[in-house]
């Protein structure tokens, strides 16, 4: 039986921030091919700000909901761009999904994860197949739910989510972008992985390792 508390979530944000720093240049290079080359910078900046803001909270007296809302605001204010509103909404929806709880079991965590994906979809208005981060987040959220229902616990759910995110990001190579900066490239976006989907893989994998690794 999993028990995730505020301290675990703070550690999770630290892990994501580290993973983003390590991945920054690869993401910028991906974004340079079909975007404006700043995606890695935005993601590193946003998650560093989130990590620092949640680290300043007193984990012993702060609820997960508050931590997630803090992460949302600090990410948004550090970054703006498109990642800002998308991830801020993700964290705010995640916060709403766990409101009132001090510790989170695997069902709570998967609910939080799925609320995050839904938040990104609602804010960005993207569907799968449009070559965006939704192509990683949507299958990841579905896979997490299915794995949980099959009884694999949080570790199994997040592992399934990470696998699905990876496959989803790979699949974006064959898509033509219709949203965001790459959308103006038409067919020239073919063959290139969407940087938002690539960074989603990094986020989800870091979450998996921090929470269950």
């Amino acid at each position, binding site marked *: 039986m999993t028990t995730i508390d505020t301290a675990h979530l703070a550690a999770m944000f630290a892990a994501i921030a580290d993973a983003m720093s390590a991945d920054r240049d690869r993401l*910028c290079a991906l974004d340079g*091919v079909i975007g404006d080359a700043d995606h890695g910078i935005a993601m590193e900046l946003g998650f560093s700000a989130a990590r620092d803001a949640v680290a300043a909270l007193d984990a012993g007296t702060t609820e997960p909901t508050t931590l997630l809302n803090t992460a949302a605001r600090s990410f948004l204010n550090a970054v*703006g*761009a*498109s990642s800002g509103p998308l991830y801020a909404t993700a964290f705010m929806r995640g916060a709403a999904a766990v409101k009132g709880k001090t510790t989170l079991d695997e069902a709570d965590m998967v609910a939080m994860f799925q609320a995050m994906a839904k938040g990104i979809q609602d804010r960005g208005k993207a569907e799968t197949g449009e070559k965006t981060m939704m192509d990683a987040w949507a299958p990841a959220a579905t896979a997490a739910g299915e794995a949980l229902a099959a009884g694999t616990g949080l570790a199994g759910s997040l592992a399934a989510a990470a696998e699905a995110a990876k496959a989803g990001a790979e699949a974006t190579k064959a898509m033509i972008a219709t*949203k965001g900066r790459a959308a*103006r490239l038409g067919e020239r976006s073919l063959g290139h992985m969407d940087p938002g989907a690539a960074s989603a893989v990094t986020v989800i994998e870091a979450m998996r390792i921090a929470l269950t690794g």
Partner: protein
Amino acid sequence: MQTKKIINDGNRAVDEMLEGILAAHPRHLKSVDGSPRSIIARDGPRQGKIGLVIGGGSGHEPSFLGFVGKGLADAAAIGNVFASPPPDPILECAKAADGGAGVLFMYGNYAGDVMNFDMAAEMAGMDDIEVRTVLSTDDVASAPVGDRHKRRGVAGNFFIFKAAGAACDRMLSFDECERIARKANDQTFTMGVALAPCSLPQTRRPNFEIGPDEMEIGMGIHGEPGIARGKLKTADEITDEMLDRILAEMAPARGEKVAVLVNSLGSTPLMELYIMNRRVKQRLDDIGVSIHASWVGNYCTSLEMAGASITLHHLDEELQTMLDHPCDCAMFRVG
């Protein structure tokens, strides 16, 4: 290999730039206390006037805060390089620009900017500030004519924001200011060409690759790749290619007037811009369209990208009045 820049810490480039700008233009600009990315005209906002808030990512200087001042924009919200500002500084701009009659948000049509400015507009609404939004969509290369509303806003911002700022300064109603802003956008057509990439202060790596003898037509203002790449042509050929597209859409009649902007994307020098402008004049003479006013230089750059854009702004009497309306901004003056 890293590019060369005159910066300190790449992560502080924007904030240090803003400090330098406020130091250079203290009579025109100030920042909002506690919101250093919200830059306000010292002389601009006033009671009963529609407030005009513009903004977007850094890296396009003098866009956007160079156009903050009496007669043009009341405030600009500044983002990280090539990134929309987040909602908070935009909201602070709205509050500072608010004269009790409503606030107009104007910015380039990009997914990130739309999300952040929309969030700020919702927040402003909760503070009883009515916000309306007009996006600039002047880049003809970025979507077909049937999808004009999907186009990027690029250097033509200059004309579009100026028209709106003039309307606001003339104390026109919210409906009129919005109408004129939309008309200015509809009558502005831009196309760009890039020769060499720029590099972000934090990475100092070229943000795309291009061959030594290549150019990229349809380039945007964030270094994002354009729609077609080919061998570098002559100035006249490039200008013709861009004007063919622009004039096909604008379709001005003999005897009509335009305003012209030949804009450097950063490192292309005035000499080359003026060579392009020569061809612009020839082409317009050929079709009996006169140039009411021209601007040539750095208006909407992309850091050190090499390249240029041509904008034509199709004038009628009303847009000409707005264009001629005096303004006194930090980096731009008319009258």
